[in-house]
């Protein structure tokens, strides 16, 4: 059974490059724990999913989004 095709939210809004500084947008593509949402759930195309994962990793390094949400050091 093929799963139904979801449309890529980035292609729909004509985003060519995902900005790692845009923490509000990136926040929509991480789980409650802070994990990267798989393309199976977000519907992102392969190209944007690759960009998204790089952008999220960069944003985490810059402390714009957490590595683990709700974690108290």
């Amino acid at each position, binding site marked *: 059974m*093929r799963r139904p*095709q979801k449309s890529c939210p980035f292609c729909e809004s004509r985003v*060519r*490059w995902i900005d*790692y*500084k845009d*923490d509000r947008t990136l926040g929509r593509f991480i789980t409650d724990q802070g994990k990267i949402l798989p393309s199976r759930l977000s519907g992102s195309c392969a190209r944007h999913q690759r960009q998204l994962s790089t952008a999220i990793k*960069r944003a*985490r*390094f*810059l*402390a*714009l*989004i*957490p*590595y683990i949400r709700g*974690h108290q*050091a």
Partner: protein
Amino acid sequence: MPRTYEAVYIFDSTLEDAAINDKIARFHGMLGTKEQPEVAHWGRRQLAYSIGPRENGYYVVSKFATEPTTLPEYERALKLDEGVIRYLITLHEHEVGAPPQSEEDLAAATRRDDDDDDED
């Protein structure tokens, strides 16, 4: 050939604005760029997680074009500066290898995708 880079610096939020500006001017002086780098101050904001004892940081984003050979010295200065909590330097050459798509291209790509689906 000069390449365009984007750098994000996170400074210690206890530093004064004048001290931060001095540091930025010193770092950018090392790049030897003819054009003045574009600098955007985000100001003080809370970090998503604490870095050592720090909960806040002063964010600055800058964009500049420079020769790649000038980067090691510049990066070393950033690494050794105790006022810089973290920094990230990335290539900012989005135009290269990705020409803007026109309406027709996009429509053609969508049609191709649809055709592929039919074959399955």
